[in-house]
């Protein structure tokens, strides 16, 4: 089965991002394909490489990165949500004249069309949020 996952909440704020991670991991471990994980609204905060949670806490950002490396996951941040919240990649830094980037490896910034495409291409869209 081909799945798309949507995450609407940021890390350490709401359980949604933990639920989404555990669901995605379980689906991949069962051999399903995850076409894309789309981070929307505050969910884009899952994609900053600059977080430093305490060492005895889970590292939510790195956990996504490691899952993406292992399974070649497509992790996409909504561009409008990312611009509002200061999530920046090279392209956005160039376009908007920013002096730094903060996007984590394996993540990319793209448009809402990527969510629609994921919903069309996948057998199921599973949404996690508040």
């Amino acid at each position, binding site marked *: *089965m081909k*799945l798309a996952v949507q995450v*609407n909440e940021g890390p350490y704020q709401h*359980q*949604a991002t933990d*639920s989404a991670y*555990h*669901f995605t*991991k*379980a*689906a991949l*471990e*069962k051999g*399903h394909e995850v076409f894309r994980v789309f981070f929307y609204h505050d969910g884009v905060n899952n994609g900053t490489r600059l977080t430093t949670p305490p060492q005895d806490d889970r590292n939510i950002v790195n956990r996504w990165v490691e899952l993406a490396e292992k399974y070649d996951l497509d992790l996409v941040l909504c561009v409008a949500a990312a611009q509002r919240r200061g999530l920046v990649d090279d392209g956005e830094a160039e376009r908007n004249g920013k002096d730094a980037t903060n996007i984590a490896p394996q993540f990319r910034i793209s448009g809402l069309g990527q969510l629609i495409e994921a919903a069309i291409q996948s057998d*199921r*869209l*599973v*949404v*996690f*949020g*508040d």
Partner: protein
Amino acid sequence: MADLHTVNKSPFDKNSLEQAIRFSTAGSAILLIEDGVYGATKGTVAEDMVKGAMGDKKVFALKSDLMARAIKEDRVIDGVEIVDYAGFVDLVEANDKVQAWL
């Protein structure tokens, strides 16, 4: 046509469980996750509503979210099936669509 409805709010906080039960069709599955698992507890004002839903729908609760809230299996309403994340994935596959009652 069977759908999976996920509910992540406590029934004592929001009415999303009531809404999910009201609008889901017969044969659907309702999965309680996050604070939604409080709806699976015995002896609450929500118990009759959940038992009523089980007349023509199946109700599930996510094991790790029950454990995180110290809701032991013997406190879960009889008939509510406890599933892990792999079971969550199976429910997504077994149903035609997934509706999150956020």
